[in-house]
Each structure stands twice: as structure tokens, then as C-alpha cells.
């Protein structure tokens, strides 16, 4: 059972993992809304080091308001961005 459901407010934490991880800096510490649960996948932060990355980690698509991600965003307030975030990078918001 995934920890979050579509519509849930979530915040991306900063795990300070070294190297090329999948969670870009521009969404860290930002709050968004879960759009869907994508399934569970081996953790890429483990796969990248030749480990199996199991058990699989829940993956979500999270929708953010652009104006929240970029305080100087030039477009209208309803513009958004969606990105995939693994469960361990999320906390309830």
C-alpha cells in the first residue's frame, strides 16, 4: 500500500546524497501535490552503485506550481511542473 494517494500534499526533503541522483535541487524543500502513484521500482541510488536496490521503492508523480519552484517565474500562476519522486524523498506536507 503506497504511503501517499493522489491529491496528497507532500514536501520533498533533501537527503544530501552525493553524486548524480534523480531528485534535482529545484524541487528540494518544495511542496507539491501527488498526481499519481507510478508503481514501485528498484532504488536508483542503490542501482547506481551496483547494488540491487531492493525492496522496490514507491514512485510518485508530484505536481508543483512553477511560481513556488521559482520565485521569479515569469509565466501565469497556473503554470505547473510534474516530476517523479521516490517515496523516501517525500514527507507529508
Amino acid at each position: 500500500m503506497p504511503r501517499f494517494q493522489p491529491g496528497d500534499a507532500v514536501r520533498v526533503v533533501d537527503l544530501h546524497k552525493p553524486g548524480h541522483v534523480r531528485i534535482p535541487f529545484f524541487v528540494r524543500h518544495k511542496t507539491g501535490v501527488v498526481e499519481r502513484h507510478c508503481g514501485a521500482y528498484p532504488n536508483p541510488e542503490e542501482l547506481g552503485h551496483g547494488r540491487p536496490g531492493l525492496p522496490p521503492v514507491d514512485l510518485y508523480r508530484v505536481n508543483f506550481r512553477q511560481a513556488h519552484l521559482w520565485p521569479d517565474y515569469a509565466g501565469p500562476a497556473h503554470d505547473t511542473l510534474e516530476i517523479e519522486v521516490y517515496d523516501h524523498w517525500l514527507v507529508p506536507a
Partner: protein
Amino acid sequence: MPIPSTVPPTRFSADAIDPNRPVIEGHHGAEYYALMTEALHKILLEKQLLTLADTDRVIAALEAPNVTWGARIVAEAWRDEAYAQRLVEDGSKAAAELGFKIKEAKLVVVRNTPSLHNVIVCTLCSCYPRSLLGQPPWWYISKNYRARTVREPRKVLAEFGLELPAEVEVRVHDSNADMRYLVLPMPPPGAAERPVEELIPLVTRHMLVGTAVVAG
């Protein structure tokens, strides 16, 4: 081929917080891997673990998928609303109905409407539905496109010749992990009554990424 001059290493956090940091293209470091790949290929051939025909076969398989495969899916969706809904519900499954197997990941289809325009980018590398559309175009891989599409999508789209009114929501999809994305563009007038063969050539690669819309 000359390698572009090296750039100083950057602190990654600086990338995120300094909007004025210039976008720098280049493949510094890649020459090492290119050389290693070539050397390994040569050794495998010498040891007869691989033949040139094997390499050709793999390259042919990589080059087979192309824009018309994605266009076929879009044309079907334009003609059949029930199919369009199945496509949005489960992209991989709906693509498989037409015989297209998305091998590398799950396919997510995002649908444009009069009030929503979707555009795809992979900020971290160049993730793209390659087993459906083939290799991504050069601009999709460029750091310029990757860095700016998340930050100033309307400006990037305008540079592609697509000016969207403020009433339309622009939704950027960062293809950063285990999904791959395809945009379902809005159909031209009367699409539902036109044969698939007539619709397929109307769909461009730009439309499938969201950097263009159907003309007219």
C-alpha cells in the same frame, strides 16, 4: 574532432540557486569512455565473442523506432475517443494494442486540451521513449533545453515558434526517473473522419514532445 575546452567543476547546489549561471554545452570527460568503448569492441571482435554483423543488428534495432510509430498512436487517438482515454489511462497498454512494445519504462501519455499544454524535458540526462520514437533530437539532449524548459518554458516554447496565451496552463513534465512521456496533441479539425494514413504525416516529433502544436 577537437574537444571543447574544459569548464571548471561546479558545485551542484550552485546550479540550482544561481539563475544567472550560464548554460554550458560540452562533453568533457566523454572522450575517455568513447575510447574505452572502441577498445572493448575491438577486443570482443578479436576474441570472436562478437561479429560486426552482431553490432549492425543492434544498431539496426536501435534505429528502427521512429516518429511515425508515435504518430500512429496519436492518429488512432484522434479517430477514437475511447482509445484516447485508454492511452491516458495506461500508455504502455494502449501502445501495445497497436503492436508497439515500450521496452525501457512505463509510457505516460499526457493530453493537450484547449486549456492545458504539456511539454516534456529530461533535466538530468536525455530520457526519451526511444523504443517508440527512436533517438532523441539534438536539442532535446542540449543543456540549454534541459536547463531552461523547467525554468522558463514559455520562453523556450516561443523560441520554437510556439506562443501560448496566458489562459493556457503550461505543464512541464520532467522525465527524471522510471516513466517515459508522450504528448497527445490536439487534433486538426475533422480528424475523427479522416483515415489514419492521412493523419500520420501531420504529426511531427516536436508535437510529441510538446514543442509544437498542429498547424491551423
